[in-house]
């Protein structure tokens, strides 16, 4: 089985305290890897297996030496497209086992230490700006988002319409 390798192309990587921030320049998504997820990712070199990573997590963060913890982290990294190749099904089996792991370990306090990958979609300039009032977009196509709720519509031929409407294409 191929061991996971971290992707490093088209990424901006920044360390903040014990977390790792990653910006995907292709997908325009940003990720925050907590200490455990960052540690796993940094050991995705194609040579380190899950047991070795579990040993690192134990020595660095005091987590129980358990391959399920590593699989949990790898599943998050895989979902975030931060690995060169998609994971094989056996490694993905643990994707939804966070709760099961906590029950198995019997220590709820471990939850904050478990590998976590949080993601957001990076906004376009217009999305991060103020919505245009519905009466303020006359004659502008596909320009700024407008109208409630939550800027889910865009200005299209002078009216606030759903972005998916064919007239706006």
């Amino acid at each position: 089985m191929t061991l996971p390798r971290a992707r490093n192309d088209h990424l901006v990587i920044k360390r903040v305290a014990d977390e790792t921030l990653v910006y995907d320049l292709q997908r325009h998504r940003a990720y925050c890897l907590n200490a455990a997820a960052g540690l796993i990712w940094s050991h995705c070199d194609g040579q380190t297996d899950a047991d070795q990573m579990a040993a690192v997590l134990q020595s660095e963060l005091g987590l129980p030496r358990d391959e399920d913890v590593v699989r949990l982290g790898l599943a998050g990294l895989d979902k975030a497209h931060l690995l060169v190749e998609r994971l094989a099904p056996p490694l993905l089996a643990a994707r939804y086992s966070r709760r099961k792991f906590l029950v198995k370990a019997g220590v709820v306090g471990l939850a904050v230490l478990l590998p976590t990958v949080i993601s957001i979609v990076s906004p376009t300039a217009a999305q991060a700006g103020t919505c245009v009032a519905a009466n303020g977009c006359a004659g502008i196509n596909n320009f700024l988002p407008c109208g409630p709720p939550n800027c889910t519509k865009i200005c299209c031929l002078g009216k606030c319409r759903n972005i998916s409407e064919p007239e706006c294409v």
Partner: protein
Amino acid sequence: MSFVAHGLRIGIRMNDPQLLDELPQRLPPGWRPASSNVVDRLYSLIAGGDGGRSGVRRYSLLYAGAARIARSMDPDEVLDRLEDDVRLYVAEWSRRKLFVHAGVVAWEGRAIVIPGRSYSGKSTLVEALVRAGATYFSDEYAVFDDHGLVHPYRVPLSLRKGADMPPEKVRVDMPKPPGGLKPLPVGVIAVATYRPGARWRPRPLSPGQAVLSLLANTVAARRKPEQVLTKLARIVEGTRVLRGSRGEAVETAGPLLAAVGS
């Protein structure tokens, strides 16, 4: 005319000199006149109105460079578009400042920053904080410099009347403090989501999560992500960043002000 705003030179040319009187109040806070003919962005404003023939009315048009960005029979709508586009352009392309969509008030020498998209209840909370004694700084952008200080960006507070109504601009009747407003360090960043009936019991965000929360509201996030991440990481360093649901703004204002001193 040409002007400089946050390091960018912008030109506006028009066929109706009367429109010049309308412009100053619509330009981004902090603008100053410039004499240079070389600009980063040029707008062309063509006023419509009655045509030569009876019964013929012409559109008012607005161009940014060669691209038409507005066309309307109502010149005010075109001026509104100009105002919005200039602000957005400056926010995205400013070389010196980082613009995060947020409401900002000053309290005890520090800034309370409330990042959020439009219609997230940000303006309502800003208004409640001002009524509680804070100084109005901004309803649109938190403008950060390289040192992480927040600069005032005083545009009229926009409050809407109903859920489906466009925002109506309401001028905040708050005089500037003697000596004007100076850039301030951040006291608290509050990521507050309005939920009817909720009580403000926020939890602190880790530095990484805090950066993501600000990045989600940063105008230049896609254009220069590396610089943005670096600056945001500096801003959240040593700053309290709180996230939670809030109920009515007046009930949240007090605890939020108290969080600055604690």
